């Protein structure tokens, strides 16, 4: 009947429209709701760590203070700036996609990927320093000369929280690389850019989590 005919026509016009959606607008709205639901599960995943952090910091406030002195505040601040700027370039990438500007989309995606790489590079420098000094999580803690017990607890939280966050940055880099490939291929247009939009949302959430991690780990006073 005419119904199936319409579907074929749709498919021919919009290669990225899945058959169970009316149009690209509906498809984008549906996928956006899915993305926000996923982001909420991410918030609760990190939420468990934040709750644990809060309780342990309350119980070992001195150890957390002493532990944080081993962190390099300026490297933490540098990484905060890098991630904030990468969020800006990601927002610009989404905007470029929405306005159908392929050149700028590629440029801003590449910039975001580069900033993400810088972030992980700085993290690598920080981790190497911690490994060298024996400032390791839990039973691997080898640092001598602490004035209070329990500094290992701080480093357990430091490594699990920044480690999980770092994995998210890495996953974001994989997603952005995939977007870059598709952008170069010319998949995206002003009517179809949902993957860029959704990856943007994910990237901003990763940025948002770091916004809390920075003062909680590096700025204990």
């Amino acid at each position, binding site marked *: 009947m005419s119904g199936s005919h319409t579907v074929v026509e749709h498919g021919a016009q919009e290669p990225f429209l899945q058959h169970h959606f009316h149009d690209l607008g509906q498809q984008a709205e549906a996928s956006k709701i899915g993305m*926000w639901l996923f*982001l909420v599960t991410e918030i609760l995943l990190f939420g468990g760590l934040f709750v644990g952090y809060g309780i342990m910091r309350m119980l*070992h406030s001195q150890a957390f203070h002493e532990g944080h002195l081993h962190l390099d505040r300026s490297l933490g601040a540098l990484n905060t700036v890098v991630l904030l700027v990468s969020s800006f370039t990601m*927002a610009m990438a989404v905007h470029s996609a929405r306005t159908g500007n392929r050149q700028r989309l590629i440029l801003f995606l590449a910039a975001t990927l580069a900033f993400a790489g810088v972030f992980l590079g700085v993290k690598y420098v920080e981790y190497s320093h911690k490994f060298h000094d024996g400032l390791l999580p839990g039973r691997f803690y080898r640092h001598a000369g602490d004035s209070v017990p329990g500094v290992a607890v701080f480093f357990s939280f430091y490594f699990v929280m920044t480690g999980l966050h770092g994995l998210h940055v890495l996953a974001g880099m994989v997603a952005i690389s995939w977007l870059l490939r598709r952008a170069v291929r010319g998949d995206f247009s002003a009517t179809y850019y949902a993957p860029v939009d959704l990856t943007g949302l994910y990237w901003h*959430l990763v940025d*948002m989590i770091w916004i809390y991690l*920075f*003062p909680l780990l590096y700025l204990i006073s």
Partner: protein
Amino acid sequence: MSTHAENKNAVRTYSIVLGALLTLTAVTVTAAGINFGSAFINVVIALAIASAKASLVALYFMHLRHDRPMSAIIFVTGLAMLAIFLMFCFLDTLSREQVQPGLTAQAPARAVSISARILSAS
């Protein structure tokens, strides 16, 4: 063309938001060096600044301000769940003194000994 105006507008908005985020980062680093009376007040100030930054990211970079309300409803519901999670865990930890006097005073030592047990067991 309206698209050109919209283009300039978005770039302007995102740039202002980035400027505000970087300024707030400088503010939080500075605030950490000031003693506001107690460690607790310092934490509250640090978290307030972080929340201001997170709100800017959510409202502008994540488009919640101009998006359909469904995204914000999902997001805020998630945050409410996190608030309940946080609140009850802290309520529990902070009210133990009333339930069993003397427990909180021993808490740091107890927690360390529990941590030590976990560490030596593994």
